[in-house]
């Protein structure tokens, strides 16, 4: 699970180690990456919105 989150974070940032990428494609399930990706996108939007609301006072 932690491995999937790390891979999704790497995808958000846009940089991934070649070794990890191979590992994910050979052993990972696509559904897990899609689900975690969607959830973390929602978390990202909520964090940005909360930050903007906090800064704007």
């Amino acid at each position, binding site marked *: 699970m932690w491995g999937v989150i790390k891979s999704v974070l790497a995808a958000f940032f*846009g940089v991934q*180690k070649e070794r990890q990428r191979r590992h994910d494609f050979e052993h990972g399930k696509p559904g897990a990456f899609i689900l975690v990706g969607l959830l973390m996108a929602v978390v990202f939007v909520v964090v940005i919105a909360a930050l903007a609301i906090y800064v704007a006072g």
Partner: protein
Amino acid sequence: MRKMLALMTGGGTLFGGASLAHANGWNMPVGVTDLSAEIYTLHMTIFWICVVIGIVVFGVMFYSLFKFRRSKGAKSAHFHENTTVEVIWTAVPLLILVGMAVPATATLQKMYDASDAELDVMITGQQWRWRYEYLGEDVAFNSNMSTPRAQITGEEERGEHYLLEVDEPLVLPINRKVRFLLTADDVIHSWWVPDFAVKQDTIPGFINENWVRINEPGIYRGQCAELCGMDHGFMPIVVHAMEEDEFDQWLVERKEAAEAEAMGVDREWEMDELMERGEQVYGSICASCHQADGGGSPPAFPGLAGNQELIDDVDWHIDVVLNGVSGTAMPAFRSNLNPVELAAVVTYSRNAWGNDTGDAVQPAEIVELLE
């Protein structure tokens, strides 16, 4: 860091020195409001950041091309990835972008904060003039370009403020927060005065907000910045910024003049008076399409001189001026001109250029039709 920033913006002032507070240089003007100066500083800061990035990137590239050229025996390296380098070249631009976004957002917030204004001015874009209304003060007028046709057609020398001069400028006080409410009657226009760093679209059916607090008295010029038809280039903006007491006096005078004109609605007007006032109104409102000599530009803008339909039917003539003609470029003037102006301009076009109908349309008749 602070020293570096000061150096960069200082360099910016030097770079744009020739254009200080003027729109005719290479750079954007510093302008005459705190906000326009802030926008200028922001612009120059980002400009110098881009210059530094450009020098570093192209410097490294050209140095590498020269230093490691094949004729000196350089061999290309073959490797597939380097995660550390990739992380650095992703993170550095991210930090630079965030670093620029923080001050830019702070400035944007100030630009959008039109609260606590001391004066509200409604600005309406029309084909092809601006209308200014001092809300709550009963003062409103149209502002038309005053550059003579002969200068445009090349029959006369161009004046100093060619295409940037109007019959009645927008008058504003300095040191007061003025809120603009911007809209349009027909198509999208855009009210743009570089010295205020204000460029705001005016859209039919919408009201946009903007604001300005001018620091220095003076004449500031701008133009319509959204292509709006044939005379898009002929609807300039001129703002006359005055000292506060001078402005208050001007406003009182305008209010009194407006009241005097409103009183004039009830009395009988002489033909000469109507013709004189009518010529003035015709020149500023009608002549841009129907031409000063009443000849028009057929087929889009029919001639009025010797127009039989107009000569025969005064009621039809008044109706056209009041309500416009749908499907043509003729707008309704019932709410843009007051009854005296409407009566005068109809009288003028019924009697000028050999139309000689002898009809004197009274303001009181117009008032009845407007109700």
